[in-house]
């Protein structure tokens, strides 16, 4: 063996690191200002309304929360499924999982009509609500993954404990994403939701989005500190991303085919697949082609360093579009309250609900992303979570 142990070192504060940190702080400040503005004036200044009750902030939040559990996969593959090549990345994978979740939750909390009553949500539970369960699942995830991270960092600890903690964290993340998917899957009244497949679909989405974000963030930090990241390792991650992206497409196909078979969902399917305007464009153009077919083609037909990076970027963009179509598209499509009747006078009855996000919502959402990335960077700066060398020679020596 060339090396017995992976060496982990804190991120060095290079000018590049400072510049990136300053940029993220600027986004955080903008989000803080946007939140204060919305909190002061009320949601009247946003594009959200009584028809589109969850808007762009929720798209950002759900994307981050889904990606968070997926970012943990690298650690799981290493310590639960015993793939040695993934082990050196396990610590940062765990850290990133926590920070992505915190970023997503921050958005949700700051978008609440009464964010000041967060303590009520933490102390008063209605256990028939999947939302209440999610509060416990999210807080629990942070605690479980934090313990898992600490165990990974304890060199003298018997590895079976790391494996056990990793297994608990893996099960917990499956429960967490099931809970997130069920927020939509259990909404019986809306034709765009009300589907059990939402839960497993969200899990596979998390695999894909989380891995893509992990690749991009890790590579950025490695580049900022001139640490080597091997081509073969990156191509291997890219191949895995391709499989996950294909699985996401598969679930999307099953979801829509099942809906198409049921006549009552035909209207919703026509809306998303055919004549839904922005939602149809986002579905076919961004989710399926840009975020699905192209990255899959890139990593399998032309496996390379740049293919993996580009595929990761495209998966993030496609994933964001997918969450947008689910969250906003599902609300934009009208509820059929009076089957068999045409509503000739009413209040937004039977018509597509329009939604134009405001700049404040965008700033709040980007602030959540900035928080997740800043916290991940800060963690890498103060904790020994990033390995110094992931060159192929070094990884192969251990593998």
């Amino acid at each position: 063996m060339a090396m017995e142990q992976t060496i982990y070192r804190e991120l060095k504060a290079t000018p590049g690191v400072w510049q990136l940190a300053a940029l993220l702080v600027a986004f955080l400040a903008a989000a803080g200002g946007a939140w204060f503005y919305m909190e002061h004036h009320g949601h009247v200044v946003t594009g959200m309304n009584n028809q589109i009750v969850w808007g762009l902030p929720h798209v950002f939040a759900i994307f981050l929360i889904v990606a968070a559990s997926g970012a943990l996969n690298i650690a799981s593959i290493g310590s639960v499924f015993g793939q040695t090549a993934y082990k050196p990345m396990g610590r940062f994978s765990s850290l990133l999982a926590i920070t992505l979740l915190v970023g997503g939750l921050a958005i949700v909390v700051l978008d609440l009509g009464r964010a000041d009553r967060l303590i009520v949500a933490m102390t008063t539970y209605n256990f028939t609500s999947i939302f209440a369960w999610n509060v416990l699942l999210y807080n629990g995830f942070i605690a479980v993954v934090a313990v898992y991270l600490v165990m990974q960092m304890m060199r003298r600890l018997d590895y079976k404990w790391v494996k056990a903690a990793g297994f608990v964290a893996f099960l917990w993340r499956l429960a967490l994403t099931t809970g997130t998917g069920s927020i939509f899957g259990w909404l019986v009244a809306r034709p765009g939701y009300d589907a059990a497949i939402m839960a497993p679909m969200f899990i596979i989405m998390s695999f894909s989005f989380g891995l893509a974000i992990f690749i991009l963030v890790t590579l950025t930090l490695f580049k900022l500190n001139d640490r080597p990241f091997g081509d073969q390792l990156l191509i291997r991650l890219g191949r895995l991303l391709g499989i996950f992206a294909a699985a996401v497409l598969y679930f999307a196909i099953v979801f829509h085919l099942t809906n198409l078979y049921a006549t009552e969902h035909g209207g919703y399917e026509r809306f998303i697949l055919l004549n839904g305007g922005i939602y149809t464009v986002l579905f076919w153009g961004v989710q399926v082609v840009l975020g699905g077919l192209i990255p899959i083609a890139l990593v399998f037909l032309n496996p390379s360093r740049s293919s993996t990076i580009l595929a990761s970027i495209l998966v993030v963009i496609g994933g964001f579009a997918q969450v947008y179509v689910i969250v906003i598209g599902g609300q934009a499509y009208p509820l059929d309250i009076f089957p068999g009747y045409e509503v000739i006078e009413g209040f937004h009855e039977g018509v597509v609900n329009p939604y134009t996000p405001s700049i404040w919502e965008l700033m709040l959402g980007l602030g959540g992303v900035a928080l997740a990335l800043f916290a991940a960077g800060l963690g890498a700066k103060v904790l020994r979570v990033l390995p110094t060398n992931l060159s192929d020679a070094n990884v192969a020596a251990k593998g």
Partner: protein
Amino acid sequence: MTNRAEMTRRDILKSGAAASTVTLAPGVTLMAFGGTAEASSRADAGKRWGLLIDASKCDANCTDCVTACKVENGWGADAEHGHVSADQSPEWIRKVTLKDKSTGREVSAPVMCQHCEEPPCVDVCPTGASMKREDGIVLVDKHICIGCRYCMMACPFKARSFVHEPITDQNVQSPRGKGTVESCNLCAPRIDSGRIPACVEACENAGHSAILFGDLKDPESPISKALKEYDSVALRADLELNPGVRYTNL
């Protein structure tokens, strides 16, 4: 239905003054109505309040029920003053005119919270703010609503509104609050003092009497007798939520 937040507040109220009215300062009075444990304890579990709406008696050009609700509960002024868009203004009750796709027959009727026996909004609420009283009235406890709007996602009838801007000139019998969700509470404060909902009264005064209010559990009540006698429908009957609001001649 009680939960920890409500119990705590009730204890505070009890310890401060054994009444539901607390004077904070001269001219500033905190009053608890309808959506509180106090009021819920006043709700009679032996009753289930409901409405029967006769679409054949409802005039398409009449909006007296909507106006009465606005006056009673103090909503709707914001939209009229042009502060908020129609999409963002509250809508506790709305009039719809429907055309039967196959026959072309047109009918008109008001739509409000359907006061389901199995309300999805109550199921999904993380804090229990969205609640059902023992007498079947579904409403929001604005003291523990965190403004997450999940209930609005779950409601099949678009019956709920989110307060998008600060509220001034509130009606004392109907407290509202920026950042919380609200909907028809069947005029719970009126019912608790032995009166009928404002919309029902307005419809009677307009000479239509298209809305019948009463106790669904009492077989001798006019609403129970009418339901037994005439064919009626529940909106979204496929969801089997057993709403307390029924429609006839729709």
